[in-house]
């Protein structure tokens, strides 16, 4: 039991060190933005897929925003992928299509497998451009965003591009404020540090792009995956394509406003991520492919992030067991120093990352909310662990994976 606890402590320590490495790199290291200065080019044809399943509250906003971008209109086709919507999504998309002839080509999907990956896979029949951009329907791209996301594709090593997600409905309640902080840490620090260090920036499946030839080479969208973006990241990596992160390509999104919706969202992410862990981790670490050594290690650690929650819970239980068994895994001063060191540094690694992100964003006041993040982490740790357990039990219970659409809250017309 005590050795098992030691193993968990070592794993947690590795992730703690990783948090600090990324944060310090972001604060003091060289920042890579190699493609962001590409403002003039012979811009290629691009197809923009907008995934929409019952998105009547938001879909008009993204279509209007896309019609206002500064990308050459004759080189840009917007394909709203209306995935079996039962609300007014179809009507709204068709209206926009009529108002902007030749610029919007709707893809109405009335049946087939559920999930975003399956919808995107079906919509590929309308795509014949080398560059494909993907947005969820609740996003609002700015004027220059499309050029910024297309620019990295001039690099023949780039297979995928990811921009920065910025919550729009920040001030709604405590949850949205906590999610705003989490997003800041995740993008401003975590993703950009991985870009700086030439590790594995993650494709997020929205505010994102993929190269058609790379997608074809890896076999297209995986409609068995709950997180097609994570799946895509690893298949591109294994085939020798880079995913790049563009921190300055920012786009507004809507974050969940209720804990129920948030829990469903994070459980889906956890299950999808764990799917990718099961599918790719061993091959990534030990297989013969085109990823570099540092990409193998970082990619493996990235795959493991959602396993850390159940592992931490298990570690707590083990620590209790060890205590009541009367076993002292460490003695005297070493025990005291270890616990003090972890309390002083380890516990705060993620908080340090988020605080650094808020500093980099020049949003100093919101750092005051950091203590409340314990609440968010508490909910996450149990939700992710629950997702993990249900995944383990699925073969016994016969439960099938299904796609839970994230509910929207926008009320403005």
């Amino acid at each position, binding site marked *: 039991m005590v050795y098992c606890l030691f193993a968990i402590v070592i794993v947690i320590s590795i992730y703690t060190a990783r948090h600090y490495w990324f944060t310090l790199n972001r604060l003091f290291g060289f920042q*890579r933005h*190699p*493609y962001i*200065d*590409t*403002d*003039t*080019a*012979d811009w*290629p044809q691009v197809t923009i897929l907008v995934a929409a399943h019952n998105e009547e509250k938001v879909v008009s906003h993204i279509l209007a*925003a896309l019609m206002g971008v*500064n990308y050459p209109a004759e080189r840009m086709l917007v394909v709203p992928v209306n995935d079996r919507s039962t609300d007014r999504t179809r009507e709204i998309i068709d209206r926009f299509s009529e108002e902007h002839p030749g610029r919007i080509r709707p893809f109405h999907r009335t049946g087939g497998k559920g999930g975003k990956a399956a919808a995107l896979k079906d919509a590929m029949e309308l795509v014949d451009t*080398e*560059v494909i951009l993907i947005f969820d329907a609740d996003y*609002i791209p*700015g*004027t*220059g965003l499309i*050029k*910024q996301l297309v*620019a990295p*594709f*001039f*690099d*023949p*090593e780039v297979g995928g591009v990811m921009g920065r997600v*910025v*919550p*729009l*409905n*920040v*001030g709604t309640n*405590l949850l949205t*404020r906590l999610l*705003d902080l989490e997003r*800041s840490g995740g993008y401003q620090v975590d993703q950009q540090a991985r870009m700086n260090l*030439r590790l594995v920036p993650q494709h997020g499946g929205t505010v994102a792009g993929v*190269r*058609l*030839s*790379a997608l*074809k*080479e890896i076999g297209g969208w995986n409609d068995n995956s709950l997180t097609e973006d994570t799946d895509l990241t690893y298949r591109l990596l294994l085939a*020798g394509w880079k995913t790049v992160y563009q921190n300055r390509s*920012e*786009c*507004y999104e809507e974050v969940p406003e209720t804990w129920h919706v948030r829990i469903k969202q994070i459980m889906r992410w956890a299950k999808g991520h764990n799917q990718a862990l099961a599918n790719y981790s061993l091959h990534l670490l030990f297989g013969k492919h*085109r990823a*570099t050594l540092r990409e193998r290690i970082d990619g493996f650690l990235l795959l493991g992030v959602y396993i850390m929650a159940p592992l931490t819970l298990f570690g707590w239980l083990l620590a209790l067991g060890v205590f009541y068994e009367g076993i002292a895994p460490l003695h005297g001063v070493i025990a005291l120093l270890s616990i003090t060191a972890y309390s002083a540094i380890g516990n705060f690694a993620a908080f340090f990352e988020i605080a650094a992100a808020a500093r980099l*964003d020049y*949003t*100093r*006041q*919101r750092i*005051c*909310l*950091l*203590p*409340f993040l314990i609440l968010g982490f508490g909910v996450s740790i149990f939700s992710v662990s629950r997702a993990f357990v249900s995944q383990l039990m699925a073969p016994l219970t016969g439960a099938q994976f299904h796609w839970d659409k994230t509910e929207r809250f926008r009320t403005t017309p």
Partner: protein
Amino acid sequence: MSHAVATAGLFALAGALFLLPLVPAIAELRLKRDAQALNVIQQYAGDIRHFSFGFRSYAADLLGPLQQCVASGGTVTGTLPHGDLYILLGRADTAPLVRPGANANTCDLLVACGTDLTLSDGMTFAKEIYALRRLTGGSGCSYRAILGDASVDLARGSAVTRWAHAAGILRADHDCDLYGRISSEREIELKSGCLFQRLHAPRIRFGPAVALARGGAARPLSPGSVPLAVAEGRRLVDGDLEIAPGETVQGSVVARGKLWIGAGARILGSVKSNKHMKVEAGVSVAGSLISASTMHIGPDCRIAGPVIAEQEMVLETGVRCGFPSRPTTVSAPAIEVEEGVVVCGTIWARNEGHVTPKP
């Protein structure tokens, strides 16, 4: 004090200490001092002319009075709604630019001129200059910003600290320091010794036009679309790569190590190296040229697509990037450009660019 009171006091104190770190958090949650979405500039598209467009609208009210000054040959001073003092010159006379009692070499007025204007040497212009006709600077002058509706000539040793935009040709003589954004709707010409950061024009010429020299001309590229499709034969090499002189490569090439392209080679796709890239004389590339490290492009090369290096870049004389009909971007933190280089589109040295004499 009873035990009960002492215990309750202890719990209250412990509770207060526990809640203490939450006080700023609760205050922020209630007061919402920083609860706005992060400021993502939705409408700013990164256009190099952003500030010149902004200034043009800011100064639009001056156009009518300026035309009157030109008609009368007079000079008018006044104050703009935001409080800036301005002077309108209806004739080519620089004497009124210095206010009585002020430093003789400093003009702290926003200047708008309706005629051709030649400035004195060594002047400092603390505010913007708006020239409706040709503007010729004096040597050693320092400008905050210039908007020219015709051509703008900056004399030797001048400096621009914010931006300059010309509807006509913008020329900078030797040893000018051009910080910020410099743009022209026709052409920019920079001579050796100039420093720059961001330049944009249909044609950017470094130094006088030169005849093709050392390596001979690259094989011509058609100004067709820059190829992006790399599926057909993307060549990915894990180590260093050498492309033989005169070789023609179909599709794109990616080297995880260093890349050397021999003289006269022709790449019908894009090229990427993760370490130093050396391109010998007379190479032509139909797509883009990307280095995750340093890049050295030899004389007389032709590159159609974007040219990007994550560290230093050197462009030797005779290099041509982009076409007037299909402009492109050349970018790196530090760029050294020899006289004789032509770039169609944008050249952006995030830290500093430097024009060196032709060897």
